[in-house]
C-alpha cells in the first residue's frame, strides 16, 4: 500500500514537472512565435472583444492581447526564474561561507543580512525601482536586494549542522581545501532544502515583478509584461475587461502550477 501511494505521488510529481518545463519552454518559444507581432498596432480594431481572429481580443492600440500575453510570458517567467536563481546562488554562497567559517566573517555578513532582512521587501523595492527609474533590469535589482537574505539564512543554519558531521572532519583531515569542503562536501547535502525554497519562491518573484510593473516601475514601452498589461487594462475594466483579465488569468494559472510543483517537490524531498 505504501508503495502504491509512493507511485501515485511520483506520478503527480512528474506530471507537474512536465507542466513546469512545458510552461518554461513554451514561454521561451511562444515569445517568438506569436499569432501577431505583439508590438504591431492595429492588428484589428481598437478594443475588439475576444473572437476567432483575436482569442483574447485587442487592446487600446489594436494590439493582439494573446500575442502580448505570450510575449509577456517570456519576460515574466524567465525574469522571475533568473531572479530566483541569482538570489539563491548568491544567498547560498554567502550563507555557506558564514556557516562554515563562523567568527568575524559570519558576524559581519549576517549583520548585513539582518539589515536587508529588516526592510519590508516591497517597500525597499518600490523605493529602489522608483529612484533608479523604470526598466525591467532595475526592477530585478530592486527585488534581488531583499530576496537573497532568506537563502543566506537557510544555507548558513544548514551548513552549521553539516559542519559537525563526521565526513566533514574526515575531509578536513585528509587535507581538502575549505572551498572544496564547502562546495563539494557540504553543499550537496543542503542543496535540496534550498531548491525547494527556490521552487516555492518562483511565484513570489513573479508576483513581485508584476507588482512593480503594476505600479509603473517595470518594462519599457512597447514591451509586454503581465503586471504592466494588467495596470493598462485597469483603465478599461468597464469597457474592455479582457485587457486586464487575460494576463491576470494566465498569470494566476502559471503561479498555481509553480506552487503545486514546489509543494510536491518539498513532499518528495522530505519523504
Amino acid at each position, binding site marked *: 500500500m505504501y508503495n502504491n501511494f509512493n507511485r501515485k505521488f511520483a506520478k503527480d510529481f512528474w506530471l507537474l514537472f512536465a507542466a513546469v518545463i512545458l510552461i518554461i519552454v513554451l514561454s521561451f518559444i511562444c515569445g517568438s512565435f506569436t499569432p501577431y507581432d505583439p508590438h504591431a*498596432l492595429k492588428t484589428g480594431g481598437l478594443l475588439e472583444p475576444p473572437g476567432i481572429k483575436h482569442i483574447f481580443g485587442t487592446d487600446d492600440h489594436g494590439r493582439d492581447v494573446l500575442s502580448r500575453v505570450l510575449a509577456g510570458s517570456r519576460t515574466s517567467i524567465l525574469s522571475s526564474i533568473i531572479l530566483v536563481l541569482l538570489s539563491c546562488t548568491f544567498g547560498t554562497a554567502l550563507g555557506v561561507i558564514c556557516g562554515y567559517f563562523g567568527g568575524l566573517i559570519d558576524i559581519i555578513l549576517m549583520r548585513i543580512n539582518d539589515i536587508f532582512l529588516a526592510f519590508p521587501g516591497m517597500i525597499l523595492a518600490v523605493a529602489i525601482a522608483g529612484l533608479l527609474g523604470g526598466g525591467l533590469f532595475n526592477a530585478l535589482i530592486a527585488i534581488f536586494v531583499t530576496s537573497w537574505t532568506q537563502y543566506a539564512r537557510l544555507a548558513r543554519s544548514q551548513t552549521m549542522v553539516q559542519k559537525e558531521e563526521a565526513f566533514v572532519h574526515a575531509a578536513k583531515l585528509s587535507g581538502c581545501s575549505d572551498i572544496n569542503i564547502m562546495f563539494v562536501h557540504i553543499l550537496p547535502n543542503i542543496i535540496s532544502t534550498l531548491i525547494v525554497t527556490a521552487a516555492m519562491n518562483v511565484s513570489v518573484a513573479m508576483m513581485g515583478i508584476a507588482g512593480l510593473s503594476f505600479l509603473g516601475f517595470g518594462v519599457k514601452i*512597447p514591451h509586454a509584461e503581465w503586471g504592466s498589461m494588467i495596470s493598462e487594462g485597469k*483603465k478599461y475594466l468597464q469597457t474592455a475587461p479582457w485587457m486586464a483579465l487575460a494576463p491576470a488569468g494566465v498569470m494566476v494559472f502559471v503561479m498555481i502550477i509553480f506552487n503545486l510543483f514546489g509543494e510536491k517537490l518539498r513532499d518528495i524531498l522530505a519523504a
Partner: protein
Amino acid sequence: MAAVLLLSSCTGSSSQNAASQTKNNAEDKTKTIKVGSTSAVVSGLDPAVDWNGWYTVRYGIAETLFRLDDSLNPVPWLASSYKNIDENTWEIKIKDNVVFSNGEKMTAQKVIDSLKRAGDMNSRAASLKDCEYTAGSDGKTITIKTKEPYVALINDLCDPYSAVIDTAAGKDFEKSPIGTGPFVISEFNENTKAVMKKNDKYWDGEVKADSIEYINVADFDTLALSINSGELDVAQDLSPESAQTLKNNTDINLNMTTQSRTYQLYFNLETMKDKAVREAVMYALDKETIDNVQLNGCVLPANGAFLENSSYGGKNLKLRKYDLSKAKELLKDAGYTDTDNDGIVEKDGKPLKIKFCIYKRLAMENMAVEMQSDLKKAGIDADVTVYEKSTFYKSGDFDIGLYSIVTMPTGDAYPFLRDCMQTDGVANFGKYYNKEVQEDLEKLSKEFNKEERSAIVDRIQQAASDDAAFDYMGFNKMYTAVSKDVEGYLTTSNDYYQVTKDTYKK
C-alpha cells in the same frame, strides 16, 4: 474568496443603510455641487503663491480685473475700461459697485495693495513688481507705470495670480482669502477638499447655488466611477480612457474643451545634428491619425504652437505634413539605408536609433506608443524612456522629447516663445539658436500693434519649423463630465473659469 463572501454578507446590511443615508444627505443639500478631479485641491488658496490662484479663481472666491474671452482676448471684469496712455503708462478704471465678501468696498487703493503683493510674492508676476502705482482721487482709477515698455500687462492682469483680494482683512490668506467672487470659502482641507458657501453680498447679483464642494480624487478610474454612480456632479480633466466609460450614461454631458496646452516635440540640436533625420521624423509622424483615431480625438492636430481661433492662430504657416515616402527619401539621401533587412535603416553600419523621452502626463504614454510605431515604419528605431517628471530635459539627455505646455496662459504668445526659443530661454531644452529668430523675439517684446505682432509670431514659428527644431503633436482636449442636473458650469480653454453666480443644480 470565501472571505469576501463572508465579509460581504456581514457588512452588506450596514453598507446598504449607509447607501440610503448618502441618498438622504444628497436630498438635504440638493444645491451642493460636488466637483471632483485628480487635482481639484492644492495646498493653499493664496492667489499670489505659485499657481494657487488658479484654484482661488476656479472656486469662484476671487476675480481678476480682466478676464479672457473665448478667443483668449482680455475683456474687463472687475475693471470697467482701460487706456494705454503711452508705452509705459496704463490707466485702468474699476467698477464702482464691487464689494468684497466681507462687505468692504473694492477701492482703487485696495486693488493696488493686492497687485503689489502679488508682484512681490510670485516670480511669474515679475511684470507687476517694478511698476509705479497711483490711485486716482475718485477711488476708481488706477494708473500703472511700467519700468520698460510692456505690451502684455493687461493679459497679465487676467492671470489668477493678480486676483484681487482684501489684503487688509485677516491674515490667513492660505486658508481663507477674502475675494469679490460669488462664493466664500467655508472649509479647506489641504490637498483633500474645499467647501464654498454662497456669497450673499455678491456684487453682480443673486448667486444661484448654495454651496460648492471640490474634492480630490486620486485616479481617473475612480473619478469616472464616482460620477457614473452619482457621487459627484462634475468630474474634471478625465483621461480619455475613463471618459469612454461615461459615453453611455445618459445623465451625464461629456464636454471636450480644447486647451491651449500643446504637446510640443523638442529636437535636441546638439545630439541630432543631421537636419535630414529631424525632418524625416517630422514627416514620418502621422499626427492626424494619431490624434483623431488612436487617441480618440482627445488631441486636436495643431498648426503651430497657438490655438487657431486665437490672434496668433498661424493660418499662414507652412509646416510639414505627414508624408512617409518623403521621410524615407530624406533618410536615403542622407545616407541611411536598411542593409540588414531588420526594418531599421543604417548609416556606416550603425542603426539609426534615437532616444525618445516622455514623462507621465496626460496622453503622453499612449501617444508615444503610436509615434514609436510610426517612426519604425520610416526605419527609425525610437527607444522610449518614460520619466516621472519633465525635469529630465535639463540634463539634455534626449534626442527627441515630448513636452506638455500651455502656450498662452493669458492670451499672449510672447512668454512662451521667449522661454522655448531664446538662446537663454528657461525652456530652450533643445539648444535652439537662430539669429533672425532672436532679433524677432526682441522686436516682439516691444511691438504694440496687434497685426504686426501676429506677423512677427508667424515669422518666428516658420523659421523654427524650417530649421526642424520643434514640432507640435496637437492641443490637449480636456474632458469634463457634468451631470445633466447641473447648469452653468463653465469649461474654458484656459481652464480657470469654472463656477459662476449662475452655476446651479436642479
